[in-house]
């Protein structure tokens, strides 16, 4: 079974380590904040200028001056700091954030990522994504493995305008966890109940499958 959005968030949160400063993109990455493994602490960076982003506010706490990069009202945790966009991206571009998680339309086995526009159809804009993928050492892309029509989004070469070139090393899809190394995808884990064959079929880019590929484990 393909992972649900919640499971994607849960699996990606397993990559968190104690003491990590983490930037979570809009959508599924943001949900990961709900699944921080027990016993560890992480601090969330929001690229509009927060280190130490907290959960959504209670109704009476809503403050129009405290929003995240998705323009949602949020809170600040104890020990938070707030800064300008120039300072925020100095932090990001300078490689000080330990882990960045963001969504994508396509990735390819060169580590390219496309996430900000579909020519003629959709112009979202890159926001901070180009800075994020160029600044971080440690990036996980979360996305669906293929379109609803079964068209793979894990390609040999991205077809859409790139957000970043040769910068993605790990992808978590609703079907699999994959690394990108040496110009190919390497299958690391399968979603529970998803076969290697199914993943192979839906991966257009070169894919390496070695030995038994374990299923993802979710704590109950």
């Amino acid at each position, binding site marked *: 079974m393909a992972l649900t959005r919640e499971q994607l968030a849960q699996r990606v949160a397993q990559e968190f380590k104690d003491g990590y400063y983490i930037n979570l993109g809009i959508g599924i990455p943001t949900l990961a904040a709900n699944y921080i493994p027990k016993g560890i602490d992480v601090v969330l960076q*929001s*690229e*509009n*200028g*927060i280190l130490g982003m907290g*959960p*959504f*506010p*209670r*109704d009476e706490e*809503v*403050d*129009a*001056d*405290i*929003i*995240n990069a*998705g*323009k*949602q*009202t*949020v809170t*600040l945790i104890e020990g938070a700091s*707030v*800064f*300008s*966009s*120039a300072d*925020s*991206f*100095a932090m*990001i*571009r300078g490689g000080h954030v330990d882990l960045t998680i963001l969504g994508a339309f396509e990735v390819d086995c060169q580590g*390219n990522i496309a996430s*900000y526009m579909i020519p003629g159809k959709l*112009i*979202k*804009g*890159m*926001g*901070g*994504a*180009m*800075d994020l993928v*160029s*600044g971080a050492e440690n990036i996980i892309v979360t996305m669906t493995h293929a379109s609803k029509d079964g068209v793979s989004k894990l390609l040999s070469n991205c077809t859409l*305008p*790139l*957000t*970043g*070139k*040769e910068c993605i090393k790990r992808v978590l899809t609703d079907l699999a966890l994959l690394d990108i190394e040496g110009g190919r995808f390497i299958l690391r884990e399968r979603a529970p109940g998803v076969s290697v064959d199914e993943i192979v079929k839906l991966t257009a880019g070169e894919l390496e499958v070695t030995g038994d590929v374990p299923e993802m484990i979710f704590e109950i």
Partner: protein
Amino acid sequence: MSGFNKIINSYEDAMDGLVDGMTIISGGFGLCGIPENLIKEIKRKGTKDLTVASNNCGTDKHGLGLLLSDHQVKKVIASYVGENALFEKQMMSGEIEVDLTPQGTLAEKMRAGGAGIPAFYTPAGYGTPVGDGKEVREFNGRKYILEEALQGDFSIAKAWKADSHGNLIFRRTARNFNPMAITAGKISVVEVEEIVEVGDLDPDQIHLPGIYVDRLIKGTFEKNIEQRTVRNT
């Protein structure tokens, strides 16, 4: 002290000198920390053919979106279009020219514009459409693109507190692009929620020194929220 009193008493005077074809650098992120009333004054003036640099273009109903709906804008320099249907439509139709710029690059271009740095190298956008036509250079085995500074005829911004000298304090994420935007305008206009006495602000805690502020005006703000998200527990 007259020479350092930056206070302007009307929005009309605050935007005096803005004419068709000028470039405006604006602070704000989404609808957070935007110079609401300065934007409304530009709408009222009806100035045309403007180039606007701002992370977003507000929404259809608020912020810089107001200038789009009156067709006052010729070109936008921004990182994000999403959730602004009018902006996307005018961009797709070619009515306005849009220079999509990565958010961090945009912030740094504004900072550079105010800081006497004409250009800098950044990894953001290398190998993407943003890098098209820009110089690529390798430093320590990595590729970077050259980005030039951004300056405006006017900058418009919003701060929280100020003294009459224009020393500014921003509040929470309403800070965002405001400090850099202010430094990059030939004439910088800042609206604030409160003006305190000179000497009331701790010198260590001023976010932007008054030297960058040409005109200061006290306003009242709607502070619209784009995504009101709450939890129940």
